[in-house]
């Protein structure tokens, strides 16, 4: 692997990310599965870095999941999106940052479609007015939340309490980065580093002291693939896809997986459990899995947040081995206690996955 070669490509795919003043929209999946990640994002950007990140309770789903599962037509999806944009304009913002990759992809797709087919834009503009009495607007800049953390990676590194380094051996932690398909595979130019060798997460890992693993099946989808998971008859494909990725990354012995998509952390995490319990195979050291984290969670750990406040207990694959390597203090007793100190329940104990 020739690192310079990659740098050359990364340099071809830089996008300009304004430093401040963003209209933030959450992700349906993430706020239900990893609510703490989005909380962490806001805490980091607002409190640590003092940025102006605005969000409103009026914002809704982008319609992505429905759209990709063929349950709503494109025009409907576009109108929903037009409404989000209109809200942004209404609150006086022109930089749009979204937490969800599916949304990000759909936003890009929609804006490109409008550019290619102005008549569709006109139609949507009309729909928007008819349905919501809102003025049509388009963001000046569209970024994904991970683009922002990428932008701020060095600021975060500057305040780091922990590094992505094995405190016992001093060796950088090996991280597998996994990009959501819709981040740059549809429009390589819209993602930092393009589609073949995306840099957005690599940048973070490098800035925070870790080391990136480039394994053969890196490009593959996490396995969600909408229909592949949502239609139960297809779930075998979803699982096989993920399995292929793990088989391929296994020889590199990764310490963690970092993701920037709602689906990916979920499936890379849960399918490890399913593979373990249905085939007996685990991919981490001595019976553990490979911890799968969102970029906010990683950033949080680097900044020294409490793992349980970051919601790491909601992962199927226990983060403890990683925390130990990073030398992060944590109280096992508090793992399954909510903010109010009450027990939030715990996953069934597994036969194979520790």
């Amino acid at each position, binding site marked *: 692997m020739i690192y310079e070669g*990659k740098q050359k*490509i990364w340099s071809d795919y830089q996008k300009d990310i304004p430093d401040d003043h963003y209209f933030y929209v959450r992700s349906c999946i993430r706020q239900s599965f990893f609510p703490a990640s989005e909380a962490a994002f806001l805490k980091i950007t607002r409190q640590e870095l003092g940025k102006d990140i605005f969000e409103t309770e009026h914002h809704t789903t982008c319609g992505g999941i429905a759209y990709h599962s063929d349950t709503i037509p494109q025009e409907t999806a576009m109108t929903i999106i037009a409404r989000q944009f209109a809200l942004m304009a209404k609150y006086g913002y022109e930089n749009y940052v979204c937490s969800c990759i599916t949304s990000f992809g759909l936003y890009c797709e929609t804006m490109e479609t409008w550019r290619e087919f102005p008549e569709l834009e006109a139609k949507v503009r009309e729909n928007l007015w008819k349905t919501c009495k809102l003025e049509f607007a388009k963001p000046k800049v569209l970024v994904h939340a991970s683009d922002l953390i990428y932008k701020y990676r060095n600021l975060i590194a500057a305040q780091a309490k922990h590094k992505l380094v094995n405190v016992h051996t001093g060796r950088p932690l090996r991280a597998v980065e996994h990009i959501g398909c819709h981040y740059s595979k549809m429009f390589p130019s819209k993602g930092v580093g*393009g589609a*073949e060798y995306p840099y957005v997460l690599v940048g973070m890992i490098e800035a925070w002291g870790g080391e990136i693993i*480039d*394994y053969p*099946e890196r490009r593959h989808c996490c396995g969600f693939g909408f229909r592949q998971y949502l239609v139960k008859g297809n779930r075998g494909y979803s699982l096989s896809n993920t399995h292929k990725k793990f088989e391929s990354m296994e020889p*590199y012995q990764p310490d963690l997986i970092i993701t920037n998509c709602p689906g990916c952390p979920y499936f890379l995490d849960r399918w490890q459990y399913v593979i373990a319990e249905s085939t007996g195979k685990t991919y981490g050291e001595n019976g553990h899995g490979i911890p799968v984290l969102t970029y906010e969670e990683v950033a949080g750990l680097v900044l020294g947040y409490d793992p349980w406040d970051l919601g790491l207990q909601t992962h199927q694959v226990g983060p403890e081995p990683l925390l130990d390597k990073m030398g992060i203090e944590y109280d096992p007793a508090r793992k399954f206690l909510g903010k109010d100190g009450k027990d939030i329940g715990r996953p069934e104990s597994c036969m194979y996955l520790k």
Partner: protein
Amino acid sequence: MKNNILIIGGGPAGLEAASGLQRLGYNVILIERSSMLGGHLASWDRLFPDGVSARGTLKGLLAQMDGVKCFTDTEVRSINRLEKSYNVILSNGITVLADAVLVASGFDLFKAEKKEEYGYGIYDHVVTNADLEAWFNAGPDSDTRIDKPKRIGFVHCVGSRDEKSGCRSCSKVCCATAVKQACEMKQAFPDAQVYCFYMDLRMFGRHYEDLYLSAQKDYSVRFIRGRVAEVSENVDGSLLVKAEDTVAGKPLKVTLDLLVLMAGMRPSAAGKRVGKLLEMPMEEDGFFAVRDGILAGQRSGLPGVFLAGAATGPKTLPETVAEARAAVVEIDRYLSDIFPNVKNYKTLVRERW
């Protein structure tokens, strides 16, 4: 006095045309951007289909160059059109009053790193057709990427027949080159397994089919119909290559120790610059447009400006040389029409006697 003819480009087309025009008694000035004559031919080892030596062929071309004024490391700085001729200022300060200009700017090889998924310049064992020829020339230890490979793959149509990489058309020579190089690699590594990934095998020329058959029969090269879609590197540095075997109708993967990308022909950047200075009509793919593909294949849109070789699209060497000769005739015809009283022939004859 004689007519001046400026030839832009010192590749096979430029050389062949220069010697031809010189023989007719014209005053020929040839400029070449790089420091040596011969163009891509100079960096090639053997030529398909019969494996003749590129060096020998180039020697043959250079042998007839005496009398031609050659300037290497020289480019066109500016051209302005006068009534009957062109006033050309060269980068070496010399000014030429050219009665005819022959643009033989040839081609650039497609930059293989643009096909990111193939990992040229990123993976340790991915090379191009040009790298391989250089290796044939320089010898076994000249390229660390080629390290006693046991499994070798050739990818046809890299940067050809591929709108994503900006070239819809076929580069014409890659199929034959790939098959030639596949055989040569088999000669170099007799127990290697060699694969060719092709979309269509365009072995259109004389002896090309024999080359193909011999590759199968004598060198047991495996031809797989399907374009390589994705290349990645294994932990041991070997390559995991994915394609579809479209004949079997199934996806396919194979582990290789060396992958050779058959970079196609793109219009030469330097040629484009000259084209802009002259405001010469180009086709959308960047190759120069000819006035008439059949009857005036050597004439550009502009009077007195002529074209030969790969400047007007991918060509094989024999075609390039033939076009150069055709250009000689076209230029001679043009000049004797425009400058009837300039007697290049007479002077030639007198010199001869």
